């Protein structure tokens, strides 16, 4: 493997792990709000969260580009406040990947919350647990299979993210060139077949490995929850 391919691999892992790790708690909050609460503007929030599922990724990437480029108001604000920029950096790739994977994570967790039994929460409340304690000790642990599924979906989606990433942060080797972008470049380049094959195998291995690991984890958790004897 060339140095560039290793860089692409490490960058992809970083982008996928970070975007999933930051996206998951936000997805939990969004899923809880959508599953168990009624509030004004709920359908609008729901539509916004799910937009990346139906809007072409290139459109999302372009939207991010015109919002966060160093000359856009949002980009300028971030720069002046924190000296931080998403533009042409791996953080931008993580943002794009996180947004594209977010609706998948929210859906998986929401389903889990909705299939949870509100009667158990009521029992916890009469035993003296407030809403926060009952959420963290009852609702959230019981939604663990959904959380695992969500993490896998978010991770896999981030790993495969292409359109929004290339539009937003471009395809800069060593900087924003993730595995799919490196694979795309290798296919385009004359004589890049060997590199393309290696990158394909790496991508396959990571994705299948993640699927396998989450399956094992989900099975263990399900047993812990007492659904299986």
């Amino acid at each position, binding site marked *: 493997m060339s140095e560039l391919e290793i860089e692409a691999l490490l960058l992809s892992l970083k982008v996928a792990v970070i975007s999933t790790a930051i996206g998951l708690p936000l997805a939990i909050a969004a899923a809880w709000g959508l599953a168990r609460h009624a509030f004004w503007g709920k359908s609008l929030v729901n539509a916004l969260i799910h937009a990346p599922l139906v809007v072409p990724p290139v459109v999302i990437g372009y939207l991010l580009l015109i919002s966060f480029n160093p000359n856009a108001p949002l980009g300028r604000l971030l720069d002046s406040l924190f000296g931080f920029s998403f533009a042409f950096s791996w953080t931008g790739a993580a943002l794009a990947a996180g947004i594209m994977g977010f609706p998948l994570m929210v859906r998986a967790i929401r389903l889990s919350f909705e299939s949870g039994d509100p*009667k*158990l929460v*009521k*029992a*916890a*409340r*009469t*035993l*003296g*647990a*407030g809403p926060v304690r009952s959420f963290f*000790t*009852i609702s959230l*642990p*019981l939604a*663990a299979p959904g959380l695992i599924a969500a993490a896998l979906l978010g991770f896999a989606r981030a790993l495969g993210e292409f359109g929004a990433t290339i539009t937003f942060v471009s395809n800069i080797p060593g900087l924003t060139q993730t595995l799919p972008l490196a694979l795309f470049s290798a296919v385009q380049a004359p004589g890049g077949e060997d590199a393309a094959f290696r990158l394909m195998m790496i991508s396959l291995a990571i994705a299948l490995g993640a699927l396998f690991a989450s399956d094992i984890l989900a099975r263990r958790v399900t047993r*812990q*929850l*007492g*659904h299986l*004897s």
Partner: protein
Amino acid sequence: MSAKILLAAEIESLIGTLHLRASINLPAGVTALVGPSGAGKTSLADILAGLQRAGFSHIRLNDRVLADQGSSVMLRPEQRRIGYVFQDARLFPHLSVATNLRYGMAAGMRRWEDILGMLDLKPLLERRPGTLSGGEARRVAIGRVLLSEPELLILDEPLAGLDPARKERLYPYLEKICRNHKLPILFISHQIDEVIRLADYIQLIENGRTVPALPLEDAFSHPVMQRLIGRHDAGAILTARAESREDGLTRLDFPGGHLLTVEPFALGQNIRLRIQARDVSLSRRRPKDISILNILEGRITSIRGHGDEVDIGVAVANDNGGASNLIARITHHSAERLKLKPGEPVFALIKAVAVTRKLFSD
């Protein structure tokens, strides 16, 4: 009820098509909330526990106001200290029995050993709720609630859905809970046998309306109760005490008289007897040369006809000033022939073998 009222609640709420208008006053001891299904029993319990909103509610438990629209007090369920044993146990499936028991445990709880021993929970501590039988799960649910040191205990059909053998095994635990705790217990049930065994008072509810709570013995002559029990099983409740035993017969003293039975009750034991109306016959004169051992002198208090059959209420009294009510079911034909009228003296005849173990002990 003359005992000190520990829970006082006035509740009014529209639940679907049911207009709930309830007034509940509970002393220490077991009050059975009895009514047909759909009468609002569980809604009432949920409102007391703060799990369901009511149009109007004023609830006071001991010295604390839990809910009062006037001063807009509305404590959340976790602030009410109302222990709720749900019909379906509701153990947390991802936690061990021990962790379930500790979930709501009151700070400084000293009765861990005591409560675990009383409910025989020690062998179950390491188990997962999914591996427990129905009866075991209910025992854990009861223990979990007791460990939270509630000021009011709600038992929602704690025996429902268990097969008769499991039910019989759970009874002694419930009896212990009901005897050993000085708190008010609201026991929701529509099984009359359970109520007779466990309850001290009956709080009747029908179509969302409550009637003032009655001592167990008095409740059984209430029309709502009679409708619930059904014509076939109508009868009276006597609280008696096993006084002596002779010739294979136990003498049970109750206010207003005594009965002989073949059941070998322990002497000194308090017993609740259910004397079914169809086991009681009536006679104008004291019969002689008859196999029936229990002949009680009384006076007719009521006559209620149901087609070919008539239920005759009889108050039996003795010189000690005690009195109890019995119900006798006889045919319309016999009632005419004996010319029975309210206020007239009569003898109630009960076979010793009809006085059976429908009871609990103190």
